[in-house]
């Protein structure tokens, strides 16, 4: 399984890296797709005014990247916790399986 997963992860990384070498647009900026959508809305409806603005905006791009990093870190941290816990549980069980039968009732 580990080998197969490594191949899948490498493939995912390659797909993510590819656009930095080759893109379909001239002079790619890699700006956010939603900024592009804003521009398009202004083209289609030049008179459209956004009628509500964000209740709070990160004061700078740096702070915003902090919050995005925090979001990813919280998620990844919890995933690591989950898989660590489950792996440890499986190993404890395997250990119990090979141990004398007297402890086997604890497994279920």
């Amino acid at each position, binding site marked *: 399984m580990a080998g197969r997963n490594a191949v899948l992860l490498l493939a995912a990384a390659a*797909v*993510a890296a590819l656009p930095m070498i080759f893109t*379909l647009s001239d002079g790619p900026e890699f700006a956010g797709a939603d900024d592009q*959508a*804003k521009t398009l809305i202004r083209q289609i409806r030049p008179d459209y005014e956004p009628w509500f603005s964000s209740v709070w905006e990160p004061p700078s791009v740096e702070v*915003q990247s902090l919050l995005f990093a925090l979001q*990813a870190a*919280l998620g990844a941290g919890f995933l690591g916790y989950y898989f660590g816990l489950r792996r440890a549980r499986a190993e404890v069980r395997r250990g119990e399986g090979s141990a004398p039968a007297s402890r086997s009732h604890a497994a279920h």
Partner: protein
Amino acid sequence: MHIMEGFLPAAHCAGWAAASAPFVVYGGWRLTRIVREHPEAKLLIAASGAYCFVLSALKIPSVTGSCSHPTGTGLGAVLFGPGVMTILGSIVLLFQALLLAHGGLTTLGANIFSMAIVGPWVAWGLFRLVRTLGGSLAVGVFLAAAFGNLATYVTTSMQLAIAFPDPVGGFTGSLVKFGTIFAFTQVPLAIIEGLLTVVAVNMLSTWGRDDLRGFSVFAGGAR
């Protein structure tokens, strides 16, 4: 990438919120029932939410020369059904709207509809279809996550095209334009999300089977 705060006319915001509401209620009901009947699955449900958190924080460059992020809703939809992901996806959207100025409160209903309803339902439906037709677990998971992702952004494009029809090409003309920005950009990201979700399910098939005893994701015997 979601519809930005204030960038959907008020009537549309209300309409999408109304359309999303019954799905959110259903999701809440499903989630409560699952947690009550399978308390052992709680940790994995939280982990599915965490997966959604990670993936929607990763802004990845695309061949179109712009950046967007995956949704991460396919995993939970395949494991626990689409209703659960409606709730977890809505939490992610709310977090991003409040703290990141990404998406928005007025556009929350529309964004929930695309990312937390259409995406998970397409993912779940496709997974069931592939498995019923005898496709392998990996193929089912890959297609579910990839097309769930793509369906989310096709929906976003449609929502914007309905609100902002092109003066010349009308709805269709506008759909093509928004689709180029959102859906086309998503193609490589959908592939990435598909691959990552297969890795996650592979790991779960080794370490997480006990948490999924009451669910049918591994049913069919295939690994």
